[in-house]
Every structure is written in C-alpha cells, then in structure tokens.
C-alpha cells in the first residue's frame, strides 16, 4: 500500500467522517428547533371550512336569517349541526353576517323578535337585546356584542366561516 495509490490520508479520512457525522448530529438537533421557531408561519389558517350560505343578490339592508348544516364531532359522536346567521348589507354596502347566538347564555336571537323594540335583535330566553350592528343594548342580560362570521364572496355567492368575537378582527 503505497502513498500514491491512497490520495486520501488517514488524517483527511478521519476529518471527513467526523465532519459528516458531526454535521448530521447538528442537523438532527437544529432541524426541530428551526421547525419550532417558524411553526406559526406554517400553521394552516384557522378560518375553517367556508360554507356557501346565500347569493349576494338576495341580501338587503334588512337582516335575513340563513341556515346551513355542518358536521360536528362532539366527543366521539359525530352529528349534523344546524348553524344560522343574520345577514344584511350595511349603509356602506358592506356585508354583515352576525351570529345569532346570544352572548348571555347561548339562545338564538331574532331580528325584531320583540314588538316593543323594532330595529333590534331580541333574545327570547331572558329578554336580551342588541342593536342592528350587533352591539348589546346596555342594561339587558348580554354583556358583549354578537359574534361576527368571517365571510367571503366568490362569484356572487356568500360563504361563511367561523363566528368570531368582536376585537379579533
């Protein structure tokens, strides 16, 4: 075994293998840390599935109720759940989709549900009231405004996602 036939010396060989193995070990440690650090960027948007709910040309400035169903897994039991929204166009021609779930104890509120207070949403359970923009009327049981649905318009169809409390927009 002469030196000429061995271009890689013992020292070089050890250097290469140590660098290689060390590199792998370092990568093994760093990769999860990097993944961890950039995780929020890779997170799928929590918007959830959007559901087609109505045609945009059906909408008026008067709130209308639209119902749709979603599959919901409740513990280990999967069921079909009905969801509703009160949808209208604001004076600025923007679409407003309010969740009908009362912020007091979760009953379903109705537009103009109380003849004494037209132009308001009314909760039949404990007489909670909300103005047309969903803000709760002071001195009624609810202590927060109605949630607002995420919405999207695609080719004239209104899609709704999750309802979110005010302030999360």
């Amino acid at each position, binding site marked *: 075994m002469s030196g000429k036939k061995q271009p890689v010396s013992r020292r070089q060989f050890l250097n290469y293998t140590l660098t290689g193995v060390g590199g792998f070990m370092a990568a093994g440690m760093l990769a999860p840390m990097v993944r961890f650090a950039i995780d929020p960027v890779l997170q799928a948007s929590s918007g959830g599935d959007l559901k087609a709910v109505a045609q945009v040309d059906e909408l008026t400035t008067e709130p209308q109720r639209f119902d749709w*169903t979603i599959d919901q897994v409740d513990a280990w039991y999967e069921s079909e759940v*009905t969801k509703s929204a009160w949808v209208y166009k604001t004076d600025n021609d923007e679409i407003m989709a309010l969740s009908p779930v009362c912020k007091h*104890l*979760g*009953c*379903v509120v109705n537009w103009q549900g109380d003849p004494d207070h037209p132009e308001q949403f009314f*909760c039949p*359970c*404990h007489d909670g009231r909300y103005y047309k923009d969903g803000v709760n009327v002071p001195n009624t049981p609810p202590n927060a405004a109605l949630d607002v649905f995420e919405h999207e318009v695609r080719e004239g169809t209104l899609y709704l996602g999750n309802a979110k409390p005010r302030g999360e927009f």
Partner: protein
Amino acid sequence: MEWKQKDRERYQEAKEYVDTIFIPLLGIDDIASNQAQDWLEQADAIQVISKEIERHYTGRVFLYPTYTYHVKCDYQLEVNRLNNWIENLKNEHFKHVFFLSFDPQWKLNEKDLNGQLLWITAPSINEREKEDALKVLHHQAKLLSDLIRTYWKNS
C-alpha cells in the same frame, strides 16, 4: 342545555336562568312489527325537533334524554313513572315542564301528567328526502318554540 358532560358546568354557572325541563317521549315497538316504520320515523323526527328547540333556547331549557317506552304499555303506569321522574328531576329553579310526543295515547292521559304535553301529529318523513324533511321539522320546532314562549310570558 342538555344531558351532556359539557353542559353540566354551564348549568352550574347559570342555573338560576334555566327554568324549563324538556323531555321527549318516544314509543318503540318490535322491529319486526308492521308499525315499526312509523315509530322509526317518529324517532328521527322527535330527535330533530327536540334538538332544534334546545338550540333556540339553550340558555333556558334543559333537554333531558328521551323517555322511551313500549307502545303496548299501560299508559297510566307510564304517567305515574313520568310524574315520579319529574318529582326527582325538579329542583327549586325549574318552573316549567314540557313533554313532546306524537303518540295520541299521551293526549288521552294528558290531564294526569305533571307538566305540559306538546302533542303534534307525526310528520311523514323519508330519509331519502332529508333536505325537505329537515325544513318541515325545523318549521315545527319554530312553532313549538313560540308556544313555549307564551307559557313563559304567562307565568
């Protein structure tokens, strides 16, 4: 609210607001019998309507699991058992008790029941026409919800 683990905590926090018990009554029969189809349709319908009413009034109505009985039972005995149930389920917060049924036999025994019987005729629904059936059932639930509200108003 309903008979589920997640609602127990909710109930504890809001019990003074929950003043209404709701119990669906469901008859069952031998699956091989000729009438089984009717009872099966009613089982689906009563489920959908009860759930929908619970959804409308989740902060005020407590939906207990469906009371199930055999359709060839002695209804007078069942009335006694139900009254016993109510006796034991009622606490100081519950002021209203509603039963929901499609079975005319309950209508005949209504006066002995310790609560309001909401009796309606069974809609004939078919699983294959689910969309239409749901519309009908939700409409019925809406009407019954309005009826429950009038009881609340008058109390």
